[in-house]
């Protein structure tokens, strides 16, 4: 299977099953709309006539080059990964989203956690539950050394004592168990102060800082309890954190909605504020909400991704990374990882303040997906098995999609929330994902061309 498209002035061909990315001239691009595997060594007799807009010599030499790629396995490579999907088994649990606070000090309209409480009572996780979460990870992570734990919420800074005690406990026992804990935190920044900034920059390998871009966009939807500007409170704190963070990873992450379909301006605004690692994701919400992104919005969203892609390609100063246009074509994940993706419910779980375990943070509070509890020691292996066998060959439509080894079948939670079925990808999300991937591949092609001079 191949996927060919034009972006940034390049003709780009992705060979899906080898992951080969080729920049081709017009003759090759048009030829790939005609030929199909298996390829014969000899140029088909009718090809020069079918591509009569090109000199016959060019048609023949182009075919020869495509055939060479074909023989090398970099064009029309066969899909022989399904045999691996058939042997998928449960993995050790090595990643956890720890919802230390089901409470929040902002009231963002679009919050999938329903302004922080996940549909339940507002509560804070105790340090004891945090320690139990560490014990759970050590007991259930088998031989995995790298263990990831993201402090999430609600707003995790509202449970700061639990954050610190959980980190300290993990650090005190990680070596004796042969583990390396990597902590991350996702915060709205309201409660950041110098002490917390110093601690986060020391202990957290990554941090995700939530901001929605321009002041008017942020303040319209990220509402404070006292009616004052969230932007004014948050931005200076994030700037201070990032300035003192050194080379450690961070992302300033926006959610865009129907209210700011010109979200490139928000990304650029965040760059102007001094942030270089940026992310902006479409809102996940009920399609009846006024700010929901719907199918009618897709042409505008696509043109905005095009605009952002062009800005990034053309910038020579004040460059930045955009998370969803990042793709590592040579040292990216192995094929096995790409079959299952995020690991939701299998090697990744979420834990709420009561110690209840769910497949991921977006499933928290949905009773049918509760997997167990840290206090009573329960852990539903049937649900784990279910997710272990959820992959690109078990999901509707993924087998024939060119993007399957980049998105790994998409977000299981989105599929359930929008379509009521983990195995039924949400097409609106898929369409945006495919567009982002085209931009990502085009930027990779552009970098390669510029590096070659």
């Amino acid at each position: 299977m191949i996927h060919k498209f034009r972006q940034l002035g390049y003709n780009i061909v992705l060979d899906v099953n080898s992951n080969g990315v080729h920049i081709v001239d017009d003759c090759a691009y048009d030829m790939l709309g005609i030929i199909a595997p298996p390829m014969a060594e000899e140029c088909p007799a009718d090809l020069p006539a079918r591509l009569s807009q090109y000199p016959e010599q060019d048609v023949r030499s182009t075919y020869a080059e495509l055939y060479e790629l074909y023989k090398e396995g970099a064009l029309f490579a066969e899909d022989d990964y399904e045999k691996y999907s058939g042997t998928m088994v449960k993995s050790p649990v090595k990643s956890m989203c720890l919802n230390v606070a089901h409470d929040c000090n902002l009231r963002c309209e679009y919050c999938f956690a329903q302004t922080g409480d996940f549909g339940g009572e507002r509560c804070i996780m105790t340090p004891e539950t945090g320690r139990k979460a560490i014990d759970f990870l050590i007991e259930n992570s088998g031989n995995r050394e790298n263990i990831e734990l993201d402090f999430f919420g609600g707003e995790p800074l509202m449970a700061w004592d639990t954050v610190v005690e959980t980190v300290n406990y993990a650090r005190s026992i990680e070596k004796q168990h042969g583990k390396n804990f990597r902590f991350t935190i996702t915060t709205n920044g309201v409660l950041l102060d110098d002490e917390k900034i110093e601690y986060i920059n020391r202990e957290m390998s990554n941090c995700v800082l939530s901001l929605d871009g321009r002041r008017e966009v942020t303040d319209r939807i990220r509402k404070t309890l006292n009616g004052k500007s969230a932007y004014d409170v948050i931005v200076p704190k994030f700037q201070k954190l990032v300035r003192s963070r050194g080379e450690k990873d961070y992302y300033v992450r926006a959610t865009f909605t129907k209210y700011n379909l010109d979200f490139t301006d928000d990304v650029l605004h965040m760059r102007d504020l001094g942030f270089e690692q940026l992310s902006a994701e479409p809102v996940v919400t009920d399609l009846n909400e006024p700010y929901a992104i719907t199918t009618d919005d897709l042409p505008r969203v696509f043109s905005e991704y095009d605009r952002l892609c062009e800005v990034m390609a053309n910038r020579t100063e004040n460059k930045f990374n955009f998370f969803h246009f990042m793709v590592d074509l040579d040292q990216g994940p192995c094929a096995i990882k790409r079959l299952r993706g995020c690991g939701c419910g299998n090697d990744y779980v979420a834990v709420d303040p009561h110690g209840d375990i769910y497949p991921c943070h977006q499933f928290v509070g949905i009773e049918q997906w509760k997997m167990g509890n840290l206090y009573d020691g329960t852990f539903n292996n049937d649900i784990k098995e279910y997710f272990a066998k959820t992959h690109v060959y078990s999901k509707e439509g993924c087998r024939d999609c060119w993007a399957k080894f980049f998105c790994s079948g998409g977000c299981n939670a989105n599929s359930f929330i929008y379509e009521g079925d983990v195995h039924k990808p949400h097409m609106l999300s898929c369409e945006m994902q495919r567009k982002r991937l085209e931009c990502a591949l085009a930027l990779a092609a552009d970098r390669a061309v510029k590096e070659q001079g």
Partner: protein
Amino acid sequence: MKHITTINKADLKATAAKGGCGKCQSSCQSACKTSCTVANQKCEAVK
């Protein structure tokens, strides 16, 4: 080649045989949280 420039190794198949070691980051532990982008994760077995 005159008509084609290949910009990467095109070796996904080779990664299948020894893949699945589990050292790499879970994708939602980065800047994602509401979608799924896997291919921007790095393989940590080859660094």
